[in-house]
């Protein structure tokens, strides 16, 4: 693969509005929602009643800082991941792309690299923005710093999770090829299937749940492993990477096999 292919994928991604809108939605939703939660927690700090968030802020602070904002904001990354590839099929642009790169796999690789880099940069900015905004809002009640055990790893972990999530969505977009179907599938895998599995009683269901792609993947964004977690943060991230690698390989295989 050449620098030219990377430049071409960068041109493709930056030259359509959906990219800008998805990334804007990601940043606004993640920062906005996280800030809102931090403000609400801070304002209710001294009110009577149970405060589960206050307890979690001591046991696993990044779960409170990142959970709500990125739980919602990640959907924008999923949508963008799908459309960077599915839109080529829905618009027919794939034919122009493959005329230029008939070996096909270099095109897919360049697309994955460019999109992952964009995702990485935007996630880094957003994760640290959320961290510093939320911790400063909560600073009069609880002190959370990057030097506390696990906190820096959790911040970097959240960035890595969001980056791999984009590739996970892209692979599904390339497998399914239809934008709506692929977005529905990714969203189902990310937010619908995990809670459904927990409804099944028994320890097997608990293990299945723990190995689901994003259930395993988000562990890296926690400050510390929780009692209910089947996997450690890095194990969980490894499982998520394996899921994504397998899906990307399948995506590449079918890209080679199918007519454009």
């Amino acid at each position, binding site marked *: 693969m050449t620098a*030219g292919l990377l430049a071409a994928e960068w041109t493709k991604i930056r030259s359509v509005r959906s990219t800008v809108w998805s990334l804007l939605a990601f940043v606004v939703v993640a920062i906005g929602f996280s800030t809102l939660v931090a403000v609400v927690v801070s304002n209710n700090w001294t009110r009577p009643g149970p405060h589960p968030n206050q307890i979690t802020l001591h046991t696993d602070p990044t779960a409170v800082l990142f959970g709500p904002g990125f739980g919602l904001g990640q959907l924008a990354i999923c949508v963008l991941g799908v459309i960077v590839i599915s839109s080529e099929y829905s618009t027919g642009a794939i034919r122009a792309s493959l005329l230029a790169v008939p070996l096909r796999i270099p095109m897919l690789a360049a697309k994955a690299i460019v999109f992952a880099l964009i995702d990485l940069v935007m996630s880094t900015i957003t994760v640290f923005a959320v961290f510093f905004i939320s911790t400063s809002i909560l600073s009069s009640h609880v002190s959370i710093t990057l030097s506390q055990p696990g906190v820096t790893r959790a911040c970097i972990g959240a960035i890595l999770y969001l980056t791999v999530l984009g590739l996970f969505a892209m692979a599904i977009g390339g497998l399914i090829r239809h934008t709506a179907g692929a977005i529905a599938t990714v969203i189902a895998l990310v937010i619908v299937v995990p809670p459904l599995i927990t409804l099944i009683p028994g320890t097997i269901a608990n293990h299945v749940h723990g190995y689901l792609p994003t259930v395993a993947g988000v562990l890296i964004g926690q400050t510390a492993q929780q009692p209910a977690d089947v996997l450690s943060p890095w194990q969980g991230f490894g499982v998520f990477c394996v899921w994504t690698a397998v899906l990307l390989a399948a995506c590449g295989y079918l890209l080679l096999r199918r007519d454009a």
Partner: protein
Amino acid sequence: MLWRVAEAPGHIEARELTKRFGDKVAVDHLSFTVEPGRVTGFLGPNGAGKSTTMRLICGLDWPDSGTATIGGLAYKQLSRPLTRVGALLEARSVHPGRSARNHLLFLAQTQDIPARRVDEVLELVGLSDVAGKRAGGFSLGMNQRLGIAAAMLGDPKVLLLDEPGNGLDPEGIRWVRNFMRQLASEGRTVFVSSHLMSEMAVTADHLVVIGRGALIAESSTQEFIQRSSERSVLVRTPDQARLRELIVDEGGKVTQDQDGGMVVTGLEAPRIGELAASASVVLHELTPQLPSLEEAFMELTAGSVEFGDTRTS
């Protein structure tokens, strides 16, 4: 130009090319050769498999069997393929949200073609003024021009154009025709499909004709017209009844044309002249008719028309 690769021979060759979609055989053991330096028309009724063949040549669809090569290589073996082959496909291949310039720019970047070439081809097809506009707002004709710009981006020796006149106005069609003739005269290989036979008659030097995915004829346009249709002769005479009798007695057939002439088939012009002379019939006109490419085509592809019969009868 620095970025142009060493000249490679530009033959397009299909050998026993076969493509099925489910039960349907779209291309059926098709073999033909397209030579450089002339415009080769690719003719066939709707659904004959022209577009499918073009996609097979460009490596977008995989054949079930057979091969297609350009200058002896499969499309996917070409390095920087856009500098060797320019293709205008039938189906849309531009993201409607992307500007014409960005569409061409990303294609140029994949081939290490300098960005200034993008402006050159935009100028070439007359889209400079709308280069920054989203392609989704383009008319059919503007889209077609953008497709031609993309095909010309790498200054290729081989051009594959699937119905390039689609959506163009008469002036645009004339422009494309002259453009193709010019490209061929520069020694390039121009392979162009069309359903407008009359257009091919004035554009193509050579023809590849297919029906139901299989080859029907491969010859020069001239030869195709002459060989493939029954010749007829236009006759004008003040004594129609008498001459008609003589012709029918000799085994010829006579039909009346709109402005009072007789169209004779089954007899050559000299024989008609002799018959008239022998009976002292005065002739005002005796003209051998060249059949139009249209007629030749209809005749050849009769029986291999995919959808035609049910609609026209």
